[in-house]
């Protein structure tokens, strides 16, 4: 009996020991700091980081213009007339859809009635951006020929932006950043309204004590100007007030042509928008076997960034899925790289522009069939006068790629 009890105790102790060992076996903590112990008691391999500037590796470059025109832009940029040759001056041109001779009598009723008399108009303008540091902005509206179209340029329209055609002014509240303002016009605002078959067009300028800009909504972003007509209509012999509105069927903004590009000069941004295509030759030691840690496209402006006072130009570098020149399809930018891939350049910026293209250059190594080319463009395109110009390949200050990489490393050293 005593022996059996003794055997039982032995078995229990053994089981406890095995269980204890099993518990200990579950953990491992080998992590040790190498600071101060290297290189003697560290593995022999070391990460060697190389940084190289590929300054003469542009093998082809072109600027293409006309991707987005002013009439296709998401906003219409108004720039006050500062009198400066280095700042643009721009005006919006909006032609509204034709109004009908008759108006609906009431909501839910398809019966229409003849317009007896126009009482007034309102124009509603959606502000989509402006100088935040400027006060006292005003929008000034002018009456334009009702048949104005895309052929009209700044100079051709200048006679119509005159006191004689001025139809109203609406102040932009200093606190308004994104919202609408409206202006009531009397019935004489468009004296040729009936003769023009119930059509109207307006021009809008920005007036400010100091150079300033304001962006107003356009058709492309469903934020265009709205012209509302208030009229008396014939309802069974009785004149009753009714109103209807029209969106534009055409809107754009015009400005004097910017200074011409010099030879050997590329441009990005502007109106109509321009893009620059840069093709690179990447050395095999980088492209074939290295691990790229960081790659930066370096652009040196030849002149300060042109644009509206207080505005800024956002430029982005994108890869190409195929290189077919101006119409090369662009590779979308991964969301986590987006903020690094673009740079925001204030008007007047003259310093070097650096765009992070790390994932792009890594992609060139992983997918050798991808064109080793970068398209630089403004974003959004065509919505501002912001334009950066930089030297072409081969010229001083030519576009360059700065690549930080680790050459091939084999582990297993003893």
């Amino acid at each position: 009996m005593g022996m059996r009890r003794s055997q039982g105790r032995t078995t229990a102790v053994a089981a406890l020991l095995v269980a204890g060992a099993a518990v200990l076996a579950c953990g491992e903590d080998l992590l040790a700091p190498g600071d101060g112990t290297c290189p003697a008691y560290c593995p022999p391999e070391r990460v060697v980081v190389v940084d190289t500037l590929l300054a003469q590796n542009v093998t082809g470059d072109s600027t293409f213009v006309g991707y987005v025109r002013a009439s296709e832009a998401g906003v219409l940029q108004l720039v006050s007339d500062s009198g400066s040759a280095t700042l643009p001056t721009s005006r919006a041109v909006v032609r509204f859809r034709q109004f009908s001779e008759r108006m609906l009598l009431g909501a839910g009723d398809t019966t229409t009635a003849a317009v007896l008399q126009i009482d007034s108009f309102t124009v509603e303008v959606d502000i989509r951006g402006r100088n935040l540091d400027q006060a006292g902005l005003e929008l000034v509206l002018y009456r334009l020929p009702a048949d104005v179209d895309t052929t009209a340029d700044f100079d051709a329209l200048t006679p119509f932006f005159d006191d004689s055609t001025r139809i109203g002014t609406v102040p932009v509240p200093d606190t308004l950043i994104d919202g609408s303002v409206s202006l009531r016009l009397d019935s004489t605002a468009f004296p040729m309204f009936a003769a023009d078959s119930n059509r109207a067009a307006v021009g809008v300028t920005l007036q400010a004590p100091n150079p300033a800009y304001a962006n107003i909504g356009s058709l492309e972003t469903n934020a265009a100007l709205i012209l509302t007509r208030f009229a008396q209509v014939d309802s069974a012999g009785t004149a009753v007030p009714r109103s209807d509105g029209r969106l534009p069927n055409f809107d754009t903004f015009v400005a004097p042509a910017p200074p011409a590009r010099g030879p050997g000069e590329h441009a990005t941004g502007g109106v109509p928008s321009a893009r620059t295509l840069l093709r690179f030759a990447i050395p095999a030691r980088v492209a074939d076997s290295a691990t790229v840690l960081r790659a930066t496209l370096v652009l040196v402006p030849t002149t300060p960034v042109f644009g509206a006072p207080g505005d800024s130009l956002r430029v982005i570098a994108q890869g190409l899925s195929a290189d077919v020149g101006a119409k090369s399809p662009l590779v979308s930018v991964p969301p986590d790289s987006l903020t690094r891939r673009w740079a925001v350049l204030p008007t007047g910026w003259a310093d070097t522009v650096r765009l992070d293209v790390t994932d792009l250059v890594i992609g060139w190594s992983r997918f050798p069939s991808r064109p080793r080319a970068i398209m630089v463009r403004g974003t959004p395109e065509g919505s501002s006068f912001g334009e950066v110009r930089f030297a072409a390949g081969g010229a001083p200050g030519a576009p360059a790629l700065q690549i930080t990489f680790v050459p091939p490393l084999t582990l297993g050293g003893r």
Partner: protein
Amino acid sequence: MRRVAIVLVALCALLPGELIGQNSIYGIRGLGFPGRWTTARGRALGGGPGAFDPVSPINPAGVAAFPRVTVLAGASTDLRGYTVGDVSVDGLRATRFPLLLIGGRAGSLPIGFAVSYAQYTERSYDVTLADTIDLRGVPVAVTDRTISQGGVSDLRGAVGVLVSPRLRLGVAVHMLSGSAKLSLSRQFADSAYRPYRVTSEDRTKGLGFSAGVVWAPLAGVQLGLAARTDTKADIEVDSTPQGTVNLPTTLVAGLELAPIPALRWSATGIWRSWSDADPDLAARAFDTWEIGTGLELGGAETGASRVPLRLGFRYATLPFAPADDQPHEITLAIGTGLTFAGNRALLDVALERAMRNGGGASERAWQLSWTMTVRP
């Protein structure tokens, strides 16, 4: 028998996918830290019985002593700390399963056999290094981490002949095979730089042959001698040959005295020509000496006490160092063992205090090891 089966299943469940052994800061350079090739009983005795122990894959002549089928598995946990220069690190911990053996006797013939799996060298480490480097004219903080998981294993097939009750002879073939998963990564404090990581798989192959003899000239006296030669190790990284490394010749000699059944003293000396590998390595490689001795008091089979007390001492020089100063190791050990299931199962436990010095570093470790032996 059923209990034995349960124990076997439990043992298998405890074994991890990779059988790798002890690690040390002295195993970062060279081929790694040499394995101990002994059981918890052997470790408790300072490695003293290594030259005769049937369950230790040192002397193939030992396997002739297997009375019946024997299955053995061992594990070891170490708690470690080291000092290099002004840097001291504590709290490192690892558990490994460095020994597995199945042996037995060929029917009624006087021939014993064993297949064993032991750790030849261990090369597991995880080292971080913080630094600041200048990138694009700006100081950038970086953290490097180097990890190796693996080592070289020694798969041995041994045959021993009981020539007479006093003489045993044995030979063995050793297949050396190993792999280590290596990775090196760098994180930059500036997120504009992408993290860097490179991984490789390091493979080592080799072959070895050993032969030995155990002679008992008198009752209570045993002498053991063994020799082993290993070929060059072929090393590949990611399937690309990287060259060969000369592996050492090993000579073993041991003596055991048992004046009474309840008292055993044993000592084993091992010499290995690790300096053969020196030209093939970036680190320095030295020949090594290892002297281990131990005293065992009592034990279930002696009739004196059911629980033995084991005491051991071991001195060993270590094969690899970054400098000309060869490191060495002193180990003090204590252990015991339990038998159960009618002496068909044995659990041996050893606790060691290892002190390593040399090569500009020092290391201290507590090592707890256990071996479960089943004799169905």
